[in-house]
């Protein structure tokens, strides 16, 4: 049974129509004016409204417009009933928002039929609204579940880091006072495994960020061959330790610059090259770069990492990019690893407009292929010999535990807005003997650097935080270089994992150091920049960059 609102200022008309409707089995509500009609519609929420047009004060058109302007009442179908039968009358009624139009004198059977049609439409609308509401609720539930997952991960991360603090902290203390080789090995094992656990944790957080779409990706111009050489540099020590040769090759010319997210590309390459070194006992790891250009498609840069390691069969290759999958579980025991690196690499490659693939022969070796979009290459120089000068060469890092060993005698401009780092960096440099001038943003840094140069007392070193208010470090460095400033500038960035070196180089920085800053790294870097001996600088933290 449907509820019908009948609106007409003439009582006899209402009565007549009501009787017919009740005969049809409907529940009838009546209103004798436009205003009353709006009230009844609001209170009774009828399934359909039969609305007379000619009424004093507020006519049917106006009532209809008001009904259709109210989001709550809009879905109720309105059938206008009017003595006017002209084309204009009908158009005016439908334009006011009526769903149907019946002329007087009306035929009861036609009204009945039109009413049934309107009610069917209303019923479909109600069903759809209910379905939408269910969908909406399901979506809210899914979002809540996803939020719960994020909260869980964040809590779990906290719960794991807390005991790791004690484990790693005491292992370090123990390591300083242990001299028997077997005990040192035990301490080293604790530390290595603890750090591994933290890496697993970071990988899980990374993957969860990718899956929830919260990973911010940049598009920056960068030099792929520099990045490859850099990755090789970082991996060289590990390859050397196993007696593996690490070779950089290219198949055809390579663009000098591409547009991508260098931080993420680096992460992928470090992952894949790191894997290759890990799973190869003897022989070589080759990294082959190649540009793939199909007509009408945007060009891709392909990196192939080819090793002579344990290899894999077809089914292993297929499942390798799933989370927590290694070729078999004994692999995990033998080689360690989070089992997330390849999953993260594949997701990142896809975000960067490419993909990953793997193939191999058990016992003979594996090939991992990753592609990324390069952006438009029109007008970009192609290098025929991108790895010419870059046989990766790494100076081993000599840890320097002695606090006061490094003395500085130089003037440093520190552009940094964060109070923690202002204080810590100034403190460390000043204690080491340097004179520190502070700039709280990029604009101020430019002013101070230029003023000092004009006074013929230029700073020996500029340390430039990259994220600063007013003018950031990238723009400040660009502007300084554009104005002819030639002194050394080191970028300070908070990109903990792999850094965004290329972006900093592009801006004109010639050194690079990541936060959180370590005392020795900072002092070594400033020492080197001010003209000291660069041989003791660790390439992992403060390598001088070409470009």
């Amino acid at each position, binding site marked *: 049974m449907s509820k019908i609102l009948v609106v007409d200022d003439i009582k006899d008309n209402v009565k007549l129509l009501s009787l017919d409707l009740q005969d049809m089995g409907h529940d009838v509500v009546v209103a004798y004016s436009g205003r009353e009609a709006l009230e009844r519609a609001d209170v009774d929420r009828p399934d359909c409204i039969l609305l007379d047009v000619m009424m004093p004060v507020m006519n049917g058109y106006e009532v209809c417009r008001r009904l259709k302007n109210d989001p709550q009442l809009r879905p109720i179908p309105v059938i206008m009933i009017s003595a006017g039968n002209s084309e204009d009358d009908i158009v005016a009624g439908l334009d006011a928002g009526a769903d149907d139009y019946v002329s007087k004198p009306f035929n009861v059977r036609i009204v009945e039929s039109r009413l049934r049609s309107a009610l069917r439409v209303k019923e479909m609308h109600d069903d759809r609204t209910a379905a939408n509401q269910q969908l909406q609720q399901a979506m809210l539930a899914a979002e809540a579940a996803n939020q719960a997952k994020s909260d869980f991960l*964040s809590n779990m*991360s*906290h*719960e794991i*880091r*807390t*005991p*790791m*603090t*004690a*484990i*790693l*902290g*005491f292992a*370090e*203390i123990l390591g300083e006072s242990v001299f028997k080789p077997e005990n040192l090995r035990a301490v080293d094992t604790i530390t290595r495994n*603890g750090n591994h656990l*933290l890496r697993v*944790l*970071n990988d899980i*957080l990374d993957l969860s960020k990718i899956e929830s779409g919260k990973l911010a990706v940049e598009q920056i111009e960068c030099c792929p061959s520099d990045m490859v050489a850099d990755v090789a540099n970082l991996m060289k020590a590990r390859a050397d330790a196993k007696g593996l040769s690490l070779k950089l090759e290219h198949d055809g010319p390579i663009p000098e610059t591409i547009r991508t997210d260098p931080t993420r590309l680096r992460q992928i390459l470090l992952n894949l090259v790191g894997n290759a070194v890990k799973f190869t006992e003897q022989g070589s790891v080759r990294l082959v770069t190649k540009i793939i250009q199909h007509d009408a498609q945007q060009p891709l840069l392909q990196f192939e990492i080819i090793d002579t390691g344990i290899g894999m069969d077809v089914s292993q290759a297929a499942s390798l990019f799933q989370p927590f999958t290694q070729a078999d579980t004994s692999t995990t025991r033998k080689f360690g690893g989070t089992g997330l690196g390849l999953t993260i690499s594949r997701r990142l490659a896809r975000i960067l407009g490419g993909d990953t693939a793997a193939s191999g022969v058990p016992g003979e070796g594996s090939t991992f292929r990753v592609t990324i979009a390069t952006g438009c290459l029109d007008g970009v120089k192609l290098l025929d010999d991108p790895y010419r000068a870059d046989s990766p060469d790494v100076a081993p890092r000599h840890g320097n535990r002695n606090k006061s060993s490094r003395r500085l005698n130089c003037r440093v401009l520190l552009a940094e807005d964060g109070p*923690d780092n*202002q*204080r*810590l960096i*100034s*403190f*460390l440099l*000043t*204690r080491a003997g340097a004179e*520190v001038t*502070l700039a709280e943003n990029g604009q101020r840094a430019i002013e101070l650097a230029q003023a000092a140069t004009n006074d013929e007392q230029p700073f020996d070193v500029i340390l430039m935080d990259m994220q600063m208010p007013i003018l950031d470090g990238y723009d400040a460095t660009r502007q300084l270089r554009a104005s002819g400033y030639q002194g050394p500038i080191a970028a300070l960035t908070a990109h903990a994992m792999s850094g965004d070196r290329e972006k900093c180089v592009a801006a004109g920085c010639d050194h690079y150091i990541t936060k*959180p*800053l*370590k*005392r*020795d790294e900072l002092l070594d870097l400033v020492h080197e920049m001010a003209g000291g001996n660069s041989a003791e600088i660790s390439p992992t933290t403060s390598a001088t960059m070409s470009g």
Partner: protein
Amino acid sequence: MNRRILAVEDNPDNMNLFQWILEDEGYEFTGVASAEEGLELLENHVFDLVVMDISLPGMDGKEATRRLRNDPRFRDLPIVAATAHAIKEEESAIRDSGVSALVTKPLDEQLFLDTIDSLLTEVI
């Protein structure tokens, strides 16, 4: 006279770690397991610096820091937050509570000591 450091930390192993590192560096060390005890102790004893764990039973480290900052006597007391939270949002919430510096767990011992040293030695 040795500088006096109060550590608020509910995990006994991490408390031992703080004590070991800080006493080894020559600081006079006092530890309490809750923010409530820490605030009470600060009423009657003078400390040069507070190391504050953030996740604590009862009052958390952020609330304790806010209360200290609202008290003129402790407005300039150096407070180093030590947190195992690796999430950016939480980090800014901790900073907003008014801590002087923040270090993350697991601790980088050298960074931790340099941070404390820099807060106790006014350079700028």
